[in-house]
């Protein structure tokens, strides 16, 4: 059953009957979703609902057991993991995943350089090309980390590291942003920063947001999908989902009071 | 190749494979449970052979010598684990490689100091001397059959220990989840000491068993170590069952290769390994 409303926007990413089995365990079972350009699509659900599994397949980290993933209409589920990023599908990680020994600028430079070329230039110094630095700095600027440009990534605060994580994805110039719990482990004020950031970004990119912080998801999402036990429960606007009795049941059944 | 020659080679291959299993099982056990790659494992095989020679010279009895050697090996294992290996659990593979290379140097030097560098030999114990007829014209040494049976016996005991006893349960638990064992209130360090010591003892026992079959020379440890690597990698790191299957496979391939394709004989097992890793990068029985 698909309650998803058809919008007058381009479908960037689409899954069709996506399944992932770990041995006998069905981590994800027959999920079909559409993600639209310039929309923020939230995905919520209790622990073990398959949200992260879904995200990990959308970015090519896992191979689906069955089903397909379409990017602008092309099936991409069998391409190599690194090719996803080249198609403009960028992701952030649930656990902070940065180059903690390098400066914030250098972190973003790695991301920018991929599309700027010269990766197999063995002799020319990496520090001579200013264009690269500028684009990387822009990415930092976007998430509000410009003042941390030359600080080693391991020395900035946890919240800033989460922002850096997003800056790195932005630096790859993606069309689709897959964000895996960007606010995990953050205090209220830090979360607020990320929310403001996402509000700015959601009209520029196709964003898929997996997040535990319900207030944040409700505030940000254009579309919202609820998942339970690896299955798609419902998709709709925030208000539609709020009204859905099955959603309440699913959450109450888990003893997880979020609504 | 005639049938009887084939038969002899088959038994030879199986017997060699079983001996390899004895050494490789210790290597894979230590890796599986403790995550330690012990390059000095071959040195323990060498130490076993030299100890066997030494005590045969002094007691005159192969049996007594074997028991004393095994006990000494066990003590060496406990000592090395307590003093050195223990520092390495949280370190990377590189440090493990280096430390155990250092240990090889030390063991080789001690061997030179204690026993010199001339080849030594242990004669087959009298009760196991002689040969049994296979066909009208062929016979097979009793001692080799004894070694094969001994290896099968030890493999059976290991199988029983790992699957049926409390220690075995802990070993299996330690392989899959270190934290869990600690949560059970068990001192994992004690478990590690025991496992390492058993691994060392297995290698030394193999050395003792091999002593009457081959000459005892410096460097014998490194040679067997590399062969055991091949066994462990083919079988899948940490898998005892894999080590058993792979050891027999390697034993047979090596034995038959030396008859059928002598010019490639020493390379054959490495070719086998490369081939298997291409098909299954984690080995045959990886967990």
């Amino acid at each position, binding site marked *: 059953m698909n309650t998803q409303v058809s919008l007058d926007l381009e479908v960037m990413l689409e899954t069709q009957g996506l399944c992932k089995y770990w041995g006998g365990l069905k981590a994800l079972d027959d999920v079909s979703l559409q993600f639209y350009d310039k929309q923020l699509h939230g995905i919520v659900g209790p622990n073990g609902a398959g949200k992260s599994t879904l995200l990990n397949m959308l970015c090519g980290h896992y191979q689906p057991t069955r089903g397909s993933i379409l990017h602008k209409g092309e099936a991409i589920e069998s391409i*190599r993991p690194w090719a996803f990023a080249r198609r403009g599908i960028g992701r952030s990680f649930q656990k902070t995943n940065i180059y903690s020994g390098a400066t914030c600028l250098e972190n973003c430079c790695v991301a920018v350089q991929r599309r700027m070329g010269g990766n197999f230039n063995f002799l020319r110094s990496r520090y001579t090309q200013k264009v690269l630095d500028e684009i990387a700095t822009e990415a930092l600027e976007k998430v509000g980390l410009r003042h941390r440009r030359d600080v080693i990534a391991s020395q900035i605060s946890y919240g800033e590291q989460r922002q850096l994580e997003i800056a790195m994805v932005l630096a790859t110039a993606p069309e689709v942003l897959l964000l895996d719990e960007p606010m995990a482990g953050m205090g209220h004020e830090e979360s607020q920063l990320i929310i403001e950031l996402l509000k700015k970004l959601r009209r520029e990119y196709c964003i898929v947001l997996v997040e535990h912080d319900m207030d944040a998801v409700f505030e940000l999402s254009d579309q919202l999908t609820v998942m339970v036990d690896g299955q798609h429960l419902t998709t709709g606007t925030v208000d539609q989902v709020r009204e859905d009795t099955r959603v309440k049941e699913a959450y109450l059944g888990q003893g997880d009071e979020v609504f | 190749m005639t049938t009887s020659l084939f038969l002899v080679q088959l038994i030879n291959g199986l017997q060699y494979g079983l001996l390899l299993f004895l050494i490789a099982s210790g290597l894979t056990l230590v890796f599986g449970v403790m995550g330690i*790659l012990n390059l000095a494992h071959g040195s323990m095989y060498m130490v076993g052979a030299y100890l066997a020679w030494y005590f045969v010279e002094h007691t005159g009895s192969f049996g007594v010598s074997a028991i004393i050697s095994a006990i000494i090996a066990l003590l060496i294992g406990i000592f090395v684990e307590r003093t050195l290996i223990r520092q390495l659990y949280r370190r990377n593979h590189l440090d493990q490689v*280096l430390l155990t290379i250092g240990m090889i*140097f030390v063991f080789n030097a001690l061997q030179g100091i204690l026993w010199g560098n001339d080849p030594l030999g242990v004669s087959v114990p009298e009760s196991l001397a002689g040969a049994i007829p296979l066909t009208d014209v062929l016979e097979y040494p009793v001692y080799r059959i004894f070694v094969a049976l001994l290896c099968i016996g030890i493999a059976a005991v290991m199988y029983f220990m790992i699957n049926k006893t409390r220690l075995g349960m802990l070993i299996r638990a330690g392989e899959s989840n270190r934290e869990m064992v600690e949560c059970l209130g068990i001192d994992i360090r004690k478990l590690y000491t025991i496992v390492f010591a058993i691994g060392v003892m297995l290698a030394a026992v193999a050395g003792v068993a091999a002593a009457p079959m081959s000459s005892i020379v410096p460097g014998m440890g490194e040679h067997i170590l590399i062969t055991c*690597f091949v066994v462990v*990698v083919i079988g899948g790191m940490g898998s005892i069952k894999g080590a058993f299957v792979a050891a027999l496979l390697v034993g047979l391939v090596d034995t038959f290769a030396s008859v059928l394709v002598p010019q490639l004989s020493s390379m054959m097992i*490495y070719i086998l390994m490369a081939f298997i890793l291409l098909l299954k*990068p984690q080995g045959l029985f990886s967990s």
Partner: protein
Amino acid sequence: MLFNKRTERIFIWVFFPLALLMPLFLAENAFYISKMTSVMIFALFVMSLDYLVGRCGLITLGHAMFYGLGGYLFWMIAPEYEAVNFWVYTFYICMIASAVALVIGFLVLRTSGIYMIMITLAFAQMAFYFFSDSIEFGGNDGLFIYVKPETSIFGLSFFNLDDPVHFYYLCLLSLFNTLVFFRLLIRSRFGRVVDAIHENPGRTTALGYNIFLFRLMSYVIASALGAYAGYLFTLQYGFVNPSMLAWTTSGSALVMSILGGMGSIYGAILGTFVYEGLHYTLEHLTEHWMLFMGALIIAMVMVFKNGIAGYMEKLLEKRS
């Protein structure tokens, strides 16, 4: 980054001028010249390994395969009784070694961690037995090189390889060039990706890099230089034998690299000189030098984790 530029600069300014002047004082003493030369050749080999293990995080126990290959290749492709051009053959050998490394790297780099340690070892052993078992390659005794190459470029010849001092300078130049090359490589944009992969391979893949390609490239570069070192060794002693590609050669190179300070590149020179120096001294003091060497290696793992380069930098930091 752990290793800072200043310590490196100090080292380079101390080591290379000293090495440059050394033959002036020791020209009479052929033994020391030849000893120094062989240590420098091995330092070049260790440097290539240091790049692979320390910078790329690819731990290999089979690097000696390329060291030996460099020697055997020269014997295979050079005519037996005719002096060939050194530079041309350097090119040939590096190219062939690269091609071999491309194939082997393609297989080896599919694995990682402990499996990679073991499979590199297996390939090296395969090569070892290939050469030591075949009569055509002289078996365990190896082969002799009767004629040394000449070194002219456009008719100008700076080095006469039959003269130990000339050969010494050629090796010193090679070592210096390799050091400079690796410094450039590390600073380059290629080096940026290599650093990124070393620190966080998963993240680098997520950013769209095919990390396999970069690892393969690094493997090929390090292997070609390893082969070059083996080629120099063969030219120095006029023979090639299987012990060059024994796993103990890889093992001791690894020890030297760690001793110097893994990943620091210049530390490879330091590590090799200190190791060989200790080896030489201990060997003369006692027959059982291996015992002390072993104890030293163990102590190194336990105490000096960042090698001599790391230790020196700590000292300098304290002073400043």
